[in-house]
């Protein structure tokens, strides 16, 4: 939508930027529509009215004036005095139309005489020059134009008040008098003003009404939208049984119905998938479990065979040796497979203890007779809260892998580091960093991303040496369950070998608690009872602590 090239898209994007909520947008659009409609309707009404009112007033005055001119000015004697002219003007002004009159004529003494019905209010100066010019202009008489002089009018403003000024020259033998009228349009203006006010108020009311309407519309539209949003969020949180109540047949009801259908099919799909996954996991778990019983018998007997090797026929001894070694390998494989299935099923649990990390690393190396092949760089006294068995599994796999592929000496270093992102519970911000570096050729770049994959073989042609192909992936899972991580990279230039870096939180208690509270659903597979040793022990620990102080 945002990168749609259409102007409409860009416009709506910009609109969305300025008006972030749908409600606001609806209100604004409704208001704009109402405003446009009301303003144009009022405007048209006002102009029509204004025209009608003014024209009527004008016409009445002008007709009256014309008649008065004909009746009075037309009948004036050729030679008249200014006084007579004034009387004529006063007579004309006495009309019902209530205007003032100015008459101009050449008096008997040859001077031009301009007299008004009320000379204080109306003088020749009030008449615009172009009107005077138009009135005085003599036209040629032909078929279309029957009179040499016409009646002209103009609307003017004097001292802020609107007036109508009209003028005409009496047709006849020259010189004929010229008459002007001045009519106040004040009453009309007042009428029009009050009309404008009413129209303005009506517009404002329409605007408010439209906004209220928009609010109501937004509410009716947005309530289902919000319900839909809530439902979608719940669905996203994994509550697949979420459904909407469908009422009505409008588009939103249709949308709700579509949502419900989607949720239902999603739920069904997820149920199918998890059933399939559970059954395949159960299969692997059952299978490795079933393998254990015969493996136990075979292992026990194999040891008997191994001890008897010297006494065996030299022809048979190598066969026995092979059985013994392969049995051990198979044993490891089953062992690792079991471990993996526990992680997959989510039944793997942390058994935490306070341990001295250097001691643990030493014990791990010592137990596997690796003391000569490993250089350990670790200070004693680095205490950590972790699962010692799992740490041992991680270390054994990392060091074993290093010895196998990189050759000795393998360097193991233990450090602690403050974690930058450490949202610290007491001591929880600290991180344990254990590096295992070998002296080998390093790991090819294309293999590096896959070293933790299960059963990953660097090349199809290269036979997998002893080792189940699960070691590093199990090490990784064991780090994850602690809330830690293992990364692999090659040593920087100038040095040889691969470096595996294990990062573990120094205090895994918080992780363990989160796991226990968080994976309730995973525990469904972990069958009966559900008594929780770690939890119990920890709880009683806490109680002891209080009692001890």
């Amino acid at each position, binding site marked *: 939508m945002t990168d749609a090239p259409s102007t409409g898209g860009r416009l709506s994007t910009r609109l969305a930027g300025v008006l972030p909520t749908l409600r606001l947008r609806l209100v604004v659009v409704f208001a704009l529509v109402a405003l446009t409609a009301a303003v144009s309707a009022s405007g048209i009404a006002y102009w029509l009215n204004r025209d009608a009112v003014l024209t009527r007033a004008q016409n009445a005055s002008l007709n009256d004036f014309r008649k008065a001119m004909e009746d009075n000015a037309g009948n004036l004697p050729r030679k008249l005095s200014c006084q007579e002219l004034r009387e004529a003007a006063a007579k004309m002004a006495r009309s019902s139309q209530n205007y003032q009159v100015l008459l101009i004529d050449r008096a008997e003494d040859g001077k031009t005489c301009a007299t008004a019905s009320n000379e204080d209010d109306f003088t020749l100066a009030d008449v615009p020059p172009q009107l005077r010019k138009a009135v005085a202009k003599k036209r040629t008489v032909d078929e279309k134009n029957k009179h040499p002089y016409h009646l002209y009018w103009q609307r003017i403003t004097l001292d802020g008040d609107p007036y109508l000024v009209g003028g005409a020259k009496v047709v006849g033998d020259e010189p004929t008098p010229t008459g002007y009228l001045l009519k106040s349009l004040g009453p009309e203006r007042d009428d029009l003003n009050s009309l404008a006010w009413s129209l303005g108020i009506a517009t404002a009311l329409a605007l408010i009404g439209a906004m209220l309407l928009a609010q109501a519309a937004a509410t009716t539209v947005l309530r289902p939208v919000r319900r839909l949003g809530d439902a979608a969020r719940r669905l996203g949180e994994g509550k697949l049984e979420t459904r909407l109540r469908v009422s009505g047949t409008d588009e939103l009801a249709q949308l709700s119905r579509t949502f419900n259908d989607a949720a239902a099919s999603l739920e069904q799909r997820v149920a199918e998938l998890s059933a399939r996954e559970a059954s395949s996991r159960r299969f692997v778990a059952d299978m490795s479990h079933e393998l254990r019983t015969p493996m136990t018998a075979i292992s026990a007997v194999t040891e008997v065979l191994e001890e008897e090797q010297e006494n065996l026929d030299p022809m048979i001894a190598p066969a026995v040796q092979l059985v013994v070694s392969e049995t051990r390998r198979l044993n490891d494989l089953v062992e690792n497979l079991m471990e993996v299935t526990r992680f997959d099923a989510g039944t793997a649990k942390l*058994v935490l203890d306070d341990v001295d990390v250097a001691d643990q690393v030493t014990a791990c190396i010592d137990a596997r007779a690796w003391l000569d092949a490993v250089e350990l760089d670790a200070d004693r006294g680095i205490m950590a809260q972790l699962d010692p068995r799992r740490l041992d599994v991680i270390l054994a796999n990392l060091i074993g892998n290093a010895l196998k592929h990189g050759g000795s000496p393998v360097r193991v270093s233990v450090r602690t580091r403050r974690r930058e992102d450490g949202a610290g519970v007491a001591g929880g911000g600290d991180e344990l960093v254990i590096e295992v570096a070998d002296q080998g050729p390093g790991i090819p770049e294309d293999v590096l991303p896959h070293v933790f994959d299960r059963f990953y073989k660097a090349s199809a042609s290269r036979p997998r040496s002893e080792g189940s192909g699960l070691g590093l992936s199990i090490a990784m899972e064991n780090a994850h369950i602690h809330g830690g991580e293992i990364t692999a990279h090659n040593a920087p230039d100038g040095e040889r070998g691969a470096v595996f870096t294990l990062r573990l939180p120094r205090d895994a208690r918080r992780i363990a608690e989160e796991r226990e509270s968080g994976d309730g659903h995973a525990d469904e597979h972990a069958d009966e009872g559900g008594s929780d040793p*770690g939890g119990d*022990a920890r709880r009683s620990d806490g109680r002891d602590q209080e009692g001890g102080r």
Partner: protein
Amino acid sequence: MARVPFLLLIEDDDAVRTALEMGLTRQGHRVVTAASGEDGLKLLREQRPDLIVLDVMLPGIDGFEVCRRIRRTDQLPIILLTARSDDIDVVVGLESGADDYVVKPVQGRVLDARIRAVMRRGERESNDSATFGSLVIDRSAMTVTKNGEDLQLTPTELRLLLELSRRPGQALSRQQLLRLVWEHDYLGDSRLVDACVQRLRAKVEDVPSSPTLIRTVRGVGYRLDVPQ
């Protein structure tokens, strides 16, 4: 020369039973076997073995139940043979009174080492006694009395108490205790210690839920306190 340990092996799978019997016999143990929990309990009464190796998955009454029934009357060492090392099994096993556990497929050498370690726990070593409040530990007779009454402790519980009582007031870490009591050379399961401490508290403390003798030292382990 210690006498030849006499073991009762309760295991329903014929092949496993035969193979383990063969292996254990070669390690110098005397072994009787039973194919079910009921048979095992009968043999226990008749033959009085020194130690029981008990499979968890048994037809009829399972290993945990056998364990519980044995503990009602006897304090002899029990080693669980668990096919699933699923943590829940281990925990239930330890709660029902087992002294140690091994996970199938088990190597005969490991099982032998565990058996010998468990057997050694009952051996006396010094001839003194210690008193902790109402609790009297007689190291020569290998008995513990509370308010003059004999306490029925398994060898493991007794050894745990002895190790703690040898360093009164000093905290011992779970890993230390695993080495001292269980002789797990390294990386033992600390839940063994926790479970055993719980069982021991149930027997020696006045109020097991608020212990005054065997105290938890947070971040370290356990210590035995001398009451004031």
